[in-house]
């Protein structure tokens, strides 16, 4: 670990650092986590810094909020190379690489308006199966509609 990176991480007391985000995707990661900046907790964002592994990368730091496993998995959809450091009292207490899960529940909206998951009155969460990671391809478990990265970005209001 380089000194530079330690410096970035050590500034956080309690929270998370998402490292090794492909350059230019930091904003996308924030959007996926539902972080707008208006929530009140501290957020730092570093874009296009040098990286051993990636050449250039982005880093996102969020103070005062831990991510659930599902949220982290969603990050993997747009930043498959990302690593997560969980920080407590200035220490990295755990570190792991996010992985695109086989099943993604409740996080993305199906683009098919005729799908049961888009019916307001029904108590049903969306569910997608990942059929390919590179390129990313998800299939709605209810209606079978294929979703690609651009659909996911659109669902999250990014594209």
């Amino acid at each position, binding site marked *: 670990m380089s000194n530079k990176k330690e410096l970035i991480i050590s500034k956080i007391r309690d929270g998370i650092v998402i490292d090794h985000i492909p350059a230019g995707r930091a904003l996308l990661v924030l959007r996926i986590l539902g972080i707008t900046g208006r929530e009140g907790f501290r957020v730092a964002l570093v874009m296009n810094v040098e990286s051993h592994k990636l050449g250039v990368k982005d880093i996102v730091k969020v103070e005062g909020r831990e991510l659930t496993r599902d949220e982290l998995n969603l990050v993997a959809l747009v930043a498959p190379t990302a690593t997560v450091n969980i920080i407590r009292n200035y220490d990295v207490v755990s570190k792991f690489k996010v992985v695109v899960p086989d099943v993604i529940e409740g996080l993305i909206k199906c683009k098919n308006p*005729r799908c*049961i998951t888009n019916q307001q*009155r029904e*108590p049903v969460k969306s569910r997608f199966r990942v059929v390919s990671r590179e390129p990313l391809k998800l299939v709605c*478990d*209810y*209606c079978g509609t294929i979703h690609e990265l651009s659909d996911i970005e659109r669902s999250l209001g990014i594209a």
Partner: protein
Amino acid sequence: MGSLGWLGRDVITVLDFTREDLEVLFTEALNMEKYAKSRLNILNGKVLALAFFEPSTRTRLSFETAMLRLGGSVIGFSGVEATSMAKGENLADTIRMLDAYADAIVIRHSIEGAAKFAAEIAASPVINAGDGSQNHPTQAMLDLYTIWREFGTIDGLSIGILGDLRYARVVNSLIQALSYYRVRLHLISPEPLKPRRELIEFMNSRGMVYDWTDDPYRVINDVDVLYVVRIQRERFPDPMEYERVRGTYKVDLKLIEKAKPQMVILHPLPRVDEIDFAVDNTHHAKYFKQASLGVPLRMALLKLVLGGES
């Protein structure tokens, strides 16, 4: 995936079952043909709920008849009652109610994935009688059963599917079912009604042999089975385009003149005018036969799912 059999299973898509399962069903259906006009008492005391949120007289009556022939009883709703029901409460609550009353639930719904969702809610088996434009598994099982019965096999056949390949739900389920067999598929449709991407990718992933043409005359001499589905005017953005192409896709004596002698024509019915009435009197026409097999096929299905002993 190994066979899980039929007992207590939901029937949501054809792909929930194996080729082996399908053949168990066909054998049972053949047995049930003997009883399709009489009464067995193997499902005495069992109740089947029919939840038809979208009208389909043919499918509903064949399930109802099948259950009655097996000695069971039927409850349910359709038509106006279904519409007012859907306004009053959501699908989830309706399914919970039916689940409490019945041993199995047959559902027909215009929303895609409705049957799967119902199956997640109900403890009783849920049978999909058509949802959205994706799945109609019992129709596909009937289609394959008819072919199996006509030819004694499905492997090695050349199958033409003509009509709306994009929106007709039977096409999707039929192709899923055929993916268990070594068949050659000729897909025949006007350009705007070509199969959607999901279906093309499915056929590719299963290594199916298929081609597409907009001209039935190009492939008619090669098909053993010609499966015809309706082309609806509303599917065409330009009504002039519909008027221009409709004649091309009409199955008439002129078209079947070029067919193999043993070629059979199937259709899920009801038909409008996509098959000329003159064709009904030829030995190729098997769609009425196909429709009549709907009862024994569904008797077999209900018997296997509900565990009736014969």
